[in-house]
């Protein structure tokens, strides 16, 4: 009798310890993440001012802003989306509609998943040898292509997933009316999957807006205002990296301001993407 009640007590205690530890782990994880967020907010807000959005990146120890970096980042991110998203949507369509249960489909999905989590610096090296080494100079085009390679797998994955969620009755109904398959895909399936695909593009944008490693030796950076796509172009992540690692107080201030803007942009985009997804889900139910 006493042995079984001992066992019972021991099991209860073990359970209590484990549950408390799991709560502690959750608190521990959240603690670090809040600390990082707090650091970015508290140091970043102090560095935000009007000049940040109206002036160029300054020489050391002078006042200035990040206008050219913001413009460069916007140009390169939009170009990356313009290159990566259409290819991604097309490849996702191929996976979901043409190669769904075929071997090639499994292979492409597998490779796409690897690409999705491959180190971004490796893609930077790839584009360097592909574009920078052949043209002989760093350029905004090279940077955009490197970012497009990061956009691609994200969009492929979401398009593939979203198209496969569209009920097959929709396809069958349209095909039985004699509509050609490409029209079924473009006019019916894309409409059904639109919300999901837009979410995928937004998530991809959120991901590339802070990517530093692939830009270091493709777009490089520039001190000046430049929208020439064949020249090195200033961009927020690389400027933040260079300024944060510098010994100058004024540059470090700008780095924190840039870091703050990046974080806010990524968080807002992430929330928007999730809201679109949520609204879609509710509309579907």
């Amino acid at each position, binding site marked *: 009798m006493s042995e079984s009640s001992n066992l019972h007590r021991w099991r209860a205690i*073990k*359970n209590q310890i*484990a*549950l408390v530890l*799991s*709560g*502690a*782990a*959750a608190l*521990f*994880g959240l603690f670090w*993440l809040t*600390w*990082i967020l707090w*650091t970015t907010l508290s140091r970043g807000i102090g560095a935000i001012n009007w000049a940040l959005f109206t002036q160029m990146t300054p020489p050391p120890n002078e006042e200035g802003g990040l206008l050219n970096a913001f413009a460069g980042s916007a140009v390169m991110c939009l170009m990356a989306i313009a290159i990566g998203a259409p290819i991604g949507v*097309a*490849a996702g*369509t*191929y*996976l979901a*509609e*043409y*190669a769904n249960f075929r071997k090639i489909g499994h*292979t*492409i999905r*597998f490779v*796409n998943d*690897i*690409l999705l*989590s*491959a*180190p971004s*610096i*490796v893609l930077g*090296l*790839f584009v360097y*040898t*592909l574009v920078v080494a052949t043209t002989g100079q*760093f350029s905004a085009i090279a940077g955009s292509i490197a970012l497009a390679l990061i956009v*691609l797998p994200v969009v492929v994955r979401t398009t593939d997933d979203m198209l496969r969620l569209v009920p097959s009755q929709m396809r069958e109904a349209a095909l039985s009316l004699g509509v*050609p398959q*490409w029209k079924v895909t473009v006019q019916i399936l894309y409409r059904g999957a639109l919300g999901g695909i837009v979410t995928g593009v937004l*998530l991809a944008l*959120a991901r590339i807006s*802070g990517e*530093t*490693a692939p830009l*270091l030796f493709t777009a*490089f950076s520039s001190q000046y205002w430049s929208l020439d796509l064949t020249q090195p172009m200033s961009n927020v992540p690389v400027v*933040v*990296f260079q300024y*944060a690692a510098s010994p100058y107080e004024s540059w470090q201030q700008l*780095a924190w301001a840039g*870091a703050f803007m*990046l*974080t806010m942009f*990524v*968080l807002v985009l*992430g*929330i928007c993407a999730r809201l679109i997804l949520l609204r879609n889900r509710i509309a579907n139910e």
Partner: protein
Amino acid sequence: MRYPRRTSARADRFFAGLVASAGYFVLFALAGAAISMFWGGREAITTFGFDFFTSSNWDVGAGQFGAAVAIFGTLVSATIAMLIAVPISFGIALFLTEVAPNWLRGPVAAAIELLAGIPSIIYGMWGLFVLAPYLGEHIYPWVNDNLGELPLIGALFQGPPIGIGLLTAGLVLAVMVIPFTSSVMREVFLTVPTRLKESAYALGSTKWEVAWDIVLPYTRTAVIGGVFLGLGRALGETMAVTFVIGNAYNISASLLEPGTSIASSIANEFAEAVDPLHKSALLALGFVLFVITFVVLSISRLMLRQLKRREGTV
């Protein structure tokens, strides 16, 4: 009637060809990355032979390049990160699926997923400006005094308390990886059929026993897949590591000493490398990183896929 049908058949074929070539482009992107780095790195590998992988001598001025220090730093920092991140992530996933009250689960899970999207350069800046000074002033001196004397593991913790080094890099990586591994584990735990868990509860199991004896065995492969996914991230992470690892070509038993990793060497040196052999050595390093992460991520995907197959959704 025949004419429009023929054009629509042609349009169908055109569209199918278009999307198929986009699909093959995905294959090309990964293969192209591997081939370009291998091709770019062949000069370094043929010059130094197998020594390239085993030599710890990386001297740009003397034109000597050995990858051992960078490979060592990459593996050590990622291992430290996983040793911390795996138990914590398991705890978080358990908390979010079994322990927390229902109203808390959604918001906390969403918050952790949002934080997974924060750019790695932010983690790096935080590591350099906030975490490293704190560790160097308050934690590492204590670690050096108390753990440095221990037999066997003591050598790991002896060193100057400068705050940056392999241990700091591992810590920052752990913080970065926790959101990833914990959300994969959480999703995996949610796939366990309720009737399995309820059967165990009906037999009088405690929550911990259900988690350890029912949920974990049922999801074991996928959990390992999630861990490898995190490991793949930790191995290839560039910006967070570059700020805090110290970027010194130095192998030492101590985790408090500065070191370097493959990704941070490339990030620091590639844009400024003028010597073709130096560039080639960095590309070869990139190829090594690619191979390591490819293997790790392949294992991860295969294991995660097994779970999906069981669900019947391949």
